[in-house]
């Protein structure tokens, strides 16, 4: 069944797809978005129930699609010497549904890593080109925070003031002050005041398990209402099998399955892929043709390669006093970028961010918290549980991963999703640079926790739970070294664009969602400006 041909077809309704759809529809484009998941009903969020923590392990709210297995999920095969546990969510709003909403920006140096530090590559754009889009994205999403951080470029006043730090934030902040290290209250996509018809955060702390009051700025409650009001069309439960080409080698449209398994064709003048750093290469590699036997837009051979994550290491400090880390939004109260930039005296290049983080509830603590130290069973159980639960501050070391071609997303030869589409296989090896970086971070984290008053610390070691998926269809000037140009336009297919974390050239030591949104807004403007040249 043929559908009316829109100007723009967007595949994926997450942070990038939502912003892009809203932007283009506001400019006057006819936009259709296909999303393999569906709207999430806030009534179904587990955060309303006493057994919400159980949803971390079992059932339809686990962040790992291999455990969750909703109809719209596809399996992800994890491989390599450090197999990553890929986390994502397939729904309207994408992974912003189970997002913690930490909303930091890249630094100017993140766009010039090759020039400055002799590793990775430079982006074809700079921080200044993205600045206005960061601001616009912040305003639409609704961000809480405070301008004036000397470790970041100046920025406009935040839409709402910072969320409460709590005893936890004040305690760790005092530790940083004692050491003379830089730290700041973090930007979060969680509003602290009424904003654009949405109520402020009620401080429940279950952000990753759904925010039914829409204080968290997930894409389904921020960009999507605006996009739909602009006249954009969103088709849910539409699983795209492949992007098709016309005889001139341009994107013709897509083939997708509806929930009953019927195959449909959606034509479009322009196709934009926004399926995240694993889903995007998967779709491109599944879209083979005579012209592109190795995957669509893959003359460079780089589709799927240079897969980057943020290597993590969690250090938990135990305090005599109550920190009550379960109180307050799970978005990061504060962060430190004291070790963000390259220091040639260290054993690694680039750096890391300390995320000064809250906790989940008692079940998660009993299971072992973030450092994998379960409360012992037996006669000492209660004593140790009382020592730890509510007495912990976690400092998460989030390192900047460097792009390496052997870290990659390919298609698994055997595993397929329920529609018969080949599943992605993700290979990952934690580099020596990252290992040194995390080792350094662990030592420094312990130091600041002890300066804050911790009497004991736990260390998770390197952690491969991965929700930041980047680099697999990166931007660049040269078609042999990149998949898309500075406007996210595929070098090899004029009317195909790729806009999501896969476009990233470097990972920074910053959560990617703010940058993904800013890039998507900028890409929307670029596509609109180029529209007459694309058809």
């Amino acid at each position, binding site marked *: 069944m043929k559908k009316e041909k829109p100007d723009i077809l967007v595949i994926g309704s997450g942070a990038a797809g939502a912003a892009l759809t809203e932007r283009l529809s506001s400019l006057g484009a006819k936009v259709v978005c296909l999303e393999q998941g569906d709207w999430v009903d806030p009534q179904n969020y587990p955060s309303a129930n006493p057994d919400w923590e159980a949803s971390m392990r079992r059932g339809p709210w686990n962040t790992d699609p291999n455990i969750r297995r909703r109809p719209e999920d596809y399996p992800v095969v994890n491989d390599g010497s450090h197999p990553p546990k890929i986390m994502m969510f397939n729904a309207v709003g994408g992974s912003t549904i189970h997002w913690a909403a930490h909303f930091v920006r890249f630094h*100017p140096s993140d766009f010039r890593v090759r020039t400055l530090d002799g590793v990775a590559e430079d982006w074809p754009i700079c921080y200044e080109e993205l600045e206005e889009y960061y601001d616009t994205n912040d305003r639409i999403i609704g961000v809480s925070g405070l301008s004036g951080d000397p470790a970041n470029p100046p920025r406009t006043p935040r839409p709402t003031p910072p969320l409460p730090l709590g005893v936890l934030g004040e305690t760790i902040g005092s530790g940083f002050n004692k050491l003379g290290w*830089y730290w700041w209250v973090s930007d979060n996509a969680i509003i602290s005041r009424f904003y654009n018809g949405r109520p402020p955060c009620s401080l429940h702390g279950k952000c990753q398990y759904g925010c039914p009051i829409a204080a968290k700025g997930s894409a389904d409650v921020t960009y999507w209402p605006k996009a739909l009001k602009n006249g954009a069309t969103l088709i849910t439960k539409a699983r795209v099998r492949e992007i098709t080409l016309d005889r001139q080698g341009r994107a013709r449209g897509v083939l997708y399955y509806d929930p009953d398994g019927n195959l449909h064709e959606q034509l479009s003048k322009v196709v934009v892929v926004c399926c995240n750093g694993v889903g995007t290469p998967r779709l491109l590699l599944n879209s083979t043709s005579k012209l592109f036997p190795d995957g669509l837009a893959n003359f460079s051979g780089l589709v799927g390669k240079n897969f980057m994550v943020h290597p993590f290491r969690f250090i938990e400090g135990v305090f005599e006093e109550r920190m009550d880390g379960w109180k307050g939004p799970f978005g990061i109260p504060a962060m430190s970028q004291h070790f963000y930039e390259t220091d040639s005296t260290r054993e690694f290049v680039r750096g890391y961010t300390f995320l000064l983080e809250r906790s989940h509830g008692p079940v998660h603590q009993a*299971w072992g918290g973030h450092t994998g130290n379960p409360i012992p069973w037996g006669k000492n159980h209660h004593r140790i549980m009382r020592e730890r639960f509510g007495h912990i501050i976690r400092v998460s070391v989030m390192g900047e991963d460097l792009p390496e071609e052997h870290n990659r997303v390919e298609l698994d030869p055997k595993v397929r999703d329920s529609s018969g589409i080949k599943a992605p296989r993700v290979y990952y090896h934690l580099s020596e640079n990252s290992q040194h970086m995390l080792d350094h971070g662990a030592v420094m984290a312990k130091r600041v926790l002890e300066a804050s008053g911790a009497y004991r610390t736990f260390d998770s070691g390197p952690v491969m739970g991965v929700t930041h998926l980047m680099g697999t269809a990166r931007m660049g000037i040269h078609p042999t070294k990149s998949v898309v140009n500075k406007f996210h336009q595929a070098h090899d297919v004029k009317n195909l664009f790729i806009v999501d974390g896969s476009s990233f050239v470097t990972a920074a030591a910053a959560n990617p969602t703010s940058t993904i949104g800013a890039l998507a807004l900028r890409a929307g403007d670029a596509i609109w400006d180029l529209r007459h040249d694309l058809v």
Partner: protein
Amino acid sequence: MKKLTRRGVLKRSLKTSIWAVGITPYCTTLRLMYGADFWDEKRYHRTLRAAADEIIPSVDDMPAASQVKVINYISLVLEKDIELLRLIVATLDWLQNQSQTRFGRDFYQASSEQRIDLLKVLERGAQGSEIGLLNRVGPDLFVAFRNLVYEAYYTNPEVWPAIGYEFHSTGGIGPAMKPFDESILDEVCKRPRYYREIPNEEGKT
């Protein structure tokens, strides 16, 4: 923190008959899976209760697992999760068989020391802890069992006051927290710029 008394918790627990609530459906499933001879409901629940109470025993003012309806909770979870049900039943069956072999008695009738000893064997994965029926190894099954007991225990609102936890449903009012006070950043504000500026083409930042 409000203290729970063992007596108070026990009184409330005894009001609920675990035999009546949630047991039957998966008992039927297990009979269908394993056959009537394999399955003994009373023995299963006694084993489950005895094992759970060694995982979280009663100490001072804190109740044992079975005293806060952990068995109930586990029963309801296992109704919906056949895979987990198989693991838990196989684990309990191993404990029961080992208790008979080593001590000549049912697990629930063994002494606490004997029960703890068997649980430690399972946890360590020492020889004999392989669960032949499922071709699985002891430690991962022990972890699944332990975690389920923990989940059941700490999901019970009766326990929360004793550990200082307040659950706030996202449908209601959240915890009280002091508003952010900018003065905590006064020291940082005095410090110089700390990010790397990038020179433009003219060499100016």
